[in-house]
């Protein structure tokens, strides 16, 4: 299954694939000449060793854990990353694109970042120019360590283009430029970014004789996503090849003794540092940093730090929502005060959705928490066939974040033609579609052959725009 990531989404890589030999493909359809590169950053987010700036003039890192493979299979640029060979000091691999010439990132008509393991695409983050304005460089995605290797869909633009990008990683570009190869890629790429002389692109650093775009020296191994046998797999056990043992965490890797100490053993479960108001701790827990109030499902607090009060009195906005939605199982509490609250519910998968002015309809059953700054409107899809007389949902819009919970990994289905979703599996959908309830007879006979008469499908018709529905693999 391909995990569809949205901007800002993060995950452990082990959640999408057990493999550590990854193929990273970046597709970028835009006018102009875009250079896609990979920065190997240390724990401070700095490019402390420029051997780990992998780009067309330096197609691989010294121990070949990061290799540039060139355009193939629909990707404008591709890399092979062998995670368990990446040096320990590298904390983050940042995949970035920078524009060579005139234009801006807003002109990107389509683009994606994908991970392929064992010949199968496992993760895709789709972005487009609407995410950006006049930026000239884009940080597309990160592979980073936080106990285990993780992936983040960044989608962050840089106004100053490659110069700004390198500066943000390496600090002072001008100072380092004479001795470092990375400004070379920037020369001519960004007008106004004047690399000191001597670092011309035609003079690649010694030792990197492979010309731009050519297959790397290690091309003897298949450049495609085909997994290669890891170095330590002398054992004939079949599990040691390819993707490795599925689901086995990479951190206590084979041959690596576990250090004593409970805290050491638990390192991979450490609290993740706060980034913004809502921080995903793992796929099933989020942390909200209070300041402004937040509304959360009653009973979803698992822990908190700081001075936090939980208020249950039905009043104001919460009371209004609750009165309408109580029968659908939405009982909320107000979290206020200062501190951090950890929220989770029944080991459901949680998804943080930043609305940024957009609107979304969410099934009342799938709401975990949201900002009080959001505009909320309780709506009902009425049909005689629905138990309780209608499907209550919350239409949220404005500036803020809503946390959606799903049982199991959900699927986001674009609505082009008529699309049907089982009422019991529906999680969320975009605003502005025509929704009707399919007649039971038709549903049971034609779509859900053999299903009981309870199955009710909602039909969605979207005209124009990017309409979608989200369904979960679990029918309540």
């Amino acid at each position, binding site marked *: 299954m391909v995990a569809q990531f949205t901007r800002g989404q993060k995950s452990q890589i082990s959640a999408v694939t057990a493999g550590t030999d990854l193929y990273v493909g970046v597709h970028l359809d835009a006018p102009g000449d875009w250079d896609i590169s990979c920065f190997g950053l240390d724990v401070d987010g700095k490019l402390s060793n420029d051997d780990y700036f992998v780009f067309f003039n330096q197609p691989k890192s010294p121990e070949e854990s990061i290799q540039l493979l060139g355009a193939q299979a629909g990707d404008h640029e591709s890399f092979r990353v062998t995670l368990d060979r990446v040096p320990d000091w590298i904390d983050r691999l940042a995949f970035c694109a920078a524009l060579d010439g005139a234009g801006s990132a807003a002109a990107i008509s389509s683009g994606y970042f994908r991970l392929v393991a064992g010949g199968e695409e496992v993760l895709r983050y789709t972005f487009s120019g609407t995410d950006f304005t006049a930026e000239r460089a884009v940080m597309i995605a990160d592979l980073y360590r936080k106990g285990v290797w993780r992936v983040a869909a960044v989608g962050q633009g840089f106004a100053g283009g490659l110069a700004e990008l390198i500066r943000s990683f390496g600090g002072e570009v001008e100072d380092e430029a004479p001795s470092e190869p990375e400004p070379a890629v920037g020369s001519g790429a960004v007008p106004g970014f004047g690399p000191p002389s001597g670092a011309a692109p035609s003079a690649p650093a010694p030792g990197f004789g492979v010309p731009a775009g050519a297959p790397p020296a290690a091309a003897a191994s298949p450049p495609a996503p085909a997994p290669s046998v890891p170095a330590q797999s002398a054992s004939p056990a079949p599990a040691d090849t390819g993707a490795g043992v*599925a689901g086995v965490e990479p951190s206590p890797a084979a041959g690596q003794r*576990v250090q004593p100490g409970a*805290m050491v053993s638990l390192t991979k479960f450490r*609290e993740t540092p706060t980034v913004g108001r809502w921080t995903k701790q793992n796929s*099933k*827990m989020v942390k909200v940093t209070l300041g402004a109030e937040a509304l959360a499902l009653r009973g979803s607090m698992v822990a908190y730090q700081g001075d936090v009060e939980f208020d249950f009195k039905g009043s104001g906005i919460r009371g209004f929502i609750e009165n309408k939605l109580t029968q659908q199982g939405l009982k909320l509490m107000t979290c206020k005060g200062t501190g951090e609250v950890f929220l*989770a519910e*029944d080991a459901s998968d949680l998804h943080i959705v930043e609305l940024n002015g957009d609107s979304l309809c969410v099934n009342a059953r799938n709401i975990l928490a949201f900002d009080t700054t959001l505009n909320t409107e309780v709506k009902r899809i009425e049909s005689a066939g629905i138990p309780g007389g209608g499907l209550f949902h919350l239409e949220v819009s404005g500036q803020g974040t809503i946390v959606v919970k799903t049982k199991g990994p959900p699927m986001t289905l674009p609505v082009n033609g008529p699309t049907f979703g089982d009422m019991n599996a529906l999680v969320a959908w975009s605003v502005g579609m025509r929704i009707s309830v399919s007649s039971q007879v038709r549903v049971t006979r034609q779509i859900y052959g053999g299903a009981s008469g309870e199955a009710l499908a909602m039909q969605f018709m979207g005209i124009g725009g990017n309409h979608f529905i989200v369904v979960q693999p679990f029918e309540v």
Partner: protein
Amino acid sequence: MQGTLTRDYGPTPITDRMSNHGSKIAKVMIEPGKDLFARAGSMIAYEGLIDFDAQPPQLRRMASSWATGEGVHLMTCTGQGPLYLADYGKEVVVVKLDNEALSINGKNILAFDADLHWGIERVKGVSMLSGMGMFNVVLRGSGWAAMTSRGNPVVLDTREAPTFVDTDALVAFTDGLSVQPRRTARLGGLIGRGSGEAFQLGFSGQGFVVVQPSEDPRPNFSVRG
């Protein structure tokens, strides 16, 4: 035969006494003289010769300390060979203790070395409020332990700030932390699961607390209001 089932899920090399096989199975190397306590019924497979005793003499003395209905029963595992343990698809967390003490919720204990100093203790505070109590297995010394968590756990550092935890989500904590119950029910409202007592446990001191992203389906207390 081809397919991911036979290709990707084979045994992993054994490096330690305890390790994970996937995220939900614990693998323990049982050796003579190094016995193991495990949750009764958690064995899913073993190789070699391993004996299980659900009524060992060491445990009998503890039997009276278990609350009725708490439902945590341990067995001893003796013999030689790799032993695989799991508990209803929960995540398994393997911990190597280094001369320290860890208090693990009785519902979340999966296995621990028999040569650790261990005891069953009531969690302070819970009993004071509910009258019943929550029983933890306290492990002290150096050795291995495995605990379960419904969903990926998160470790919170109590050195940063006093940490308040829903008792249903509590998996384990460093023994020796100061524990304070705290009610946050206000205006007749209730927090926590269902309609029971509304309180959390506050932890402060040098250590950490492990929480799971889910309440445990089994009742925490025999009587719930």
